[in-house]
């Protein structure tokens, strides 16, 4: 359900930036979504399809880049990608709560004219 609100916020920011650049149409909207962001790409796509007609992105393609969840292991002084979202270092098997990537929810770029 909250993917709708998030997509509305994304479309609003996108419209602002598009107008500020002197353009009137969005052709491609690229989002970057972390595995731990709490949003589901399929639900974002659904929200986009439902909301786009009223926006500058009516003709746009939505692209979603998923970012893996990456933690920092202090003992090994190394990053590791979490497998199945179990935050265990594959080298020393200690759990880590130090998340370095994977929570973001970003408007990455727009293709406009």
């Amino acid at each position, binding site marked *: *359900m*909250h993917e709708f*609100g*998030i997509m509305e*916020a*994304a479309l609003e*920011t996108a419209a602002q*930036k*598009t107008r500020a*650049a*002197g*353009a009137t149409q969005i*052709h491609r909207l690229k*989002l*970057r979504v*972390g595995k*731990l*962001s*709490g*949003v589901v790409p399929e639900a974002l796509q659904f929200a986009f399809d439902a909301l786009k007609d009223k926006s500058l992105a009516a003709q746009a393609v939505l692209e979603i880049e998923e*970012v893996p969840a*990456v933690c920092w292991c202090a003992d090994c002084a190394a990053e590791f990608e979490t497998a199945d*979202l*179990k*935050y*265990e270092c594959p080298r020393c098997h200690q*759990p*880590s*709560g130090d*998340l*370095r*990537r994977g*929570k*973001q*929810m*970003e*408007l*990455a*770029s*727009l*293709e*406009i*004219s």
Partner: protein
Amino acid sequence: MCQECGCSQPGPYQVGDRKIDAHTHTLPDGTVITHSHHDHGPSHAHGHEHHHHGHAHHILNLNTGILNANDRAAEQNRGAFKALNLLVLNVVSSPGAGKTTLLTKTLNELKGRLRCAVIVGDLATDNDAARLRTTGAPVVQIATGTLCHLEAGMVAEAVKQLDLRALDLLIIENVGNLVCPASFDLGEAVRVVLHSVTEGEDKPLKYPPMFHSADVVGVTKTDMAAAADFDRELALKNIRQASPRAKIFEFSARTGDGIQAWCDYLVALKTAGR
């Protein structure tokens, strides 16, 4: 202004003998971007043009957070709370895990130790607020309508109805939902995720974003563990795996088991000035 990062445009700079007409940024996700500024045009910087529709398309690289507005509001809340030395909890769980019962018990136990107030969010009704008011603590109900989570702006509005200077502890009882509230920082110091024994042992594994963000995980309704065939060891193992940072409490609001330790923890946190 640089369209890649929104920074103001620096002039060329020098490292040792080397002149550099470029700068680097580290994005929030750790990606390092290096780019030069000399080719910035007013509208086509960093972009490229296609002409397949007979007019130019160009790319705007934004890399801007979608929930920036909420995050900013949350930081404002956090700053205000810190300035008042007010301890703020954001309590989340699935519906029916026992948030209101635990909080009612907690408020009663903390009487004379901490001055408390509650902000409680639900889609509709003020039933929870009425239950919490029986403790004598000030309670503000937020009815979110159809919204499945509280946002920082709502909390900022709700605290206007409270005398924050007369408080030590503000507890925000979020909407019963283990998904969406994970994405919305409210400006709390401590995020408390509750999980009742009747929900099984694998809740933490099923809702990773929420559990990973927890500062405290509380297992509720422990008096019902036997009836629910609850495997305590497995549940604790799953919690440690999903919430490596979290402090774990186990309690029963009905029997009062574990409530003392929980309240002592809150008093200690407040005393430590969090």
